């Protein structure tokens, strides 16, 4: 038997409704200690990261998000018993309370900038002669090093281009909530120029979504995809 933790809340925040089910369909219940509450399930074993378990974890966190923004725990927070869970949580109670205050009244929104990186490389090579190999370059050690330098410069230019696109989209989204914190990644994986996450006040979520759906207009070679609201995974 293992005790699995989904998210941290303030003591006194609403408990999970009876319909909320956790990993493997387990009951989700609230336990509190001091100023901290946590949503838990009893599981037969530590869950493996199967897709249905990841989805179930987020579903529970999302249920908490509906009433008040929780601190989502990363998947896999399994303990021998409730005492062990609270020992881990109360050791960081002050830090957790600060984080709860930071995210209160807000939710995470996210945009992903999709692009064809090879096409962007071709575009950069067409625009910048310094990135292209000079005609008639002889083979040899110097030519090899020059090719390495150009390849590095091309990837650096690609990263700069991704950053500029993120800046442009971020600027357009700032009209939704100028107080929103931002977290970004640049070139996180193939086919993605970057991602932005914003911690947006709840009353501005729909405005954010509307702006995000238009945020890619006029930006050549990039498609902007929006998702959310999420619990503030990127801001804890």
């Amino acid at each position, binding site marked *: 038997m293992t005790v699995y*933790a989904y998210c*941290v809340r303030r003591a006194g*925040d*609403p408990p999970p409704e009876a319909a909320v089910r956790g990993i493997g369909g387990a009951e989700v219940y609230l336990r509190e200690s001091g100023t901290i509450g946590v949503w838990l399930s009893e599981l037969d074993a*530590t869950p*493996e*990261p199967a*897709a249905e378990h*990841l*989805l179930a*974890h*987020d579903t529970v966190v*999302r249920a908490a998000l*509906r*009433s*008040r923004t929780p*601190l*989502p*725990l*990363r*998947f*896999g*927070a*399994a*303990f021998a018993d409730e005492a062990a869970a609270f020992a*881990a*949580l109360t050791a*960081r109670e002050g830090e*957790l309370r600060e*984080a709860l205050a930071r995210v209160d*009244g807000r*939710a995470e929104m*996210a945009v*992903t900038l*999709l692009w064809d990186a090879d096409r962007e490389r071709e575009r950069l090579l067409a625009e910048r002669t310094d990135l292209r190999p000079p005609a008639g370059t002889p083979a040899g050690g110097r030519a090899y090093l020059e090719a390495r330098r150009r390849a590095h410069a091309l990837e650096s230019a690609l990263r700069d281009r991704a950053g500029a696109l993120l800046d442009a989209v971020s600027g357009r989204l700032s009209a939704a909530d100028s107080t929103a914190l931002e977290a970004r*990644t640049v070139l*996180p*994986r193939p086919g993605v120029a970057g991602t932005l996450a914003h911690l947006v*006040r*709840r*009353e*501005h*979520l*729909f*405005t954010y*979504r509307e702006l995000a*759906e238009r945020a890619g207009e006029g930006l050549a070679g990039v498609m902007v*995809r*929006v*998702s*959310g*609201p*999420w*619990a503030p*995974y*990127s801001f*804890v």
Partner: protein
Amino acid sequence: MRSERDDLPEFQAGPAGEEWEVWSPGAAGDDRYALVDLVNRVLDRGVVITGDVTISVAGVDLVYLGLNAVLTSVSTARRSLGRRVGQEPLPREGGGAEG
């Protein structure tokens, strides 16, 4: 008597009472991007508290770690393991999301 919670703003409703769930506009094929978003968040972000770790690499190899961390993405796991076990390489993942 009003409680603090009574003053909390609810999620702003969309047109026609639209439900605020994870959404992904456009073609149905975009669902895979929503799943990547979910996996990145649940596995690679969020509060980390002490626990045991089980990491699946490419859905095949399982690595069990008694770390002061919890399950994380393969990329984060590789960095973490490299620091802890002297840069021993992990098996390369065949794909999947990285944060």
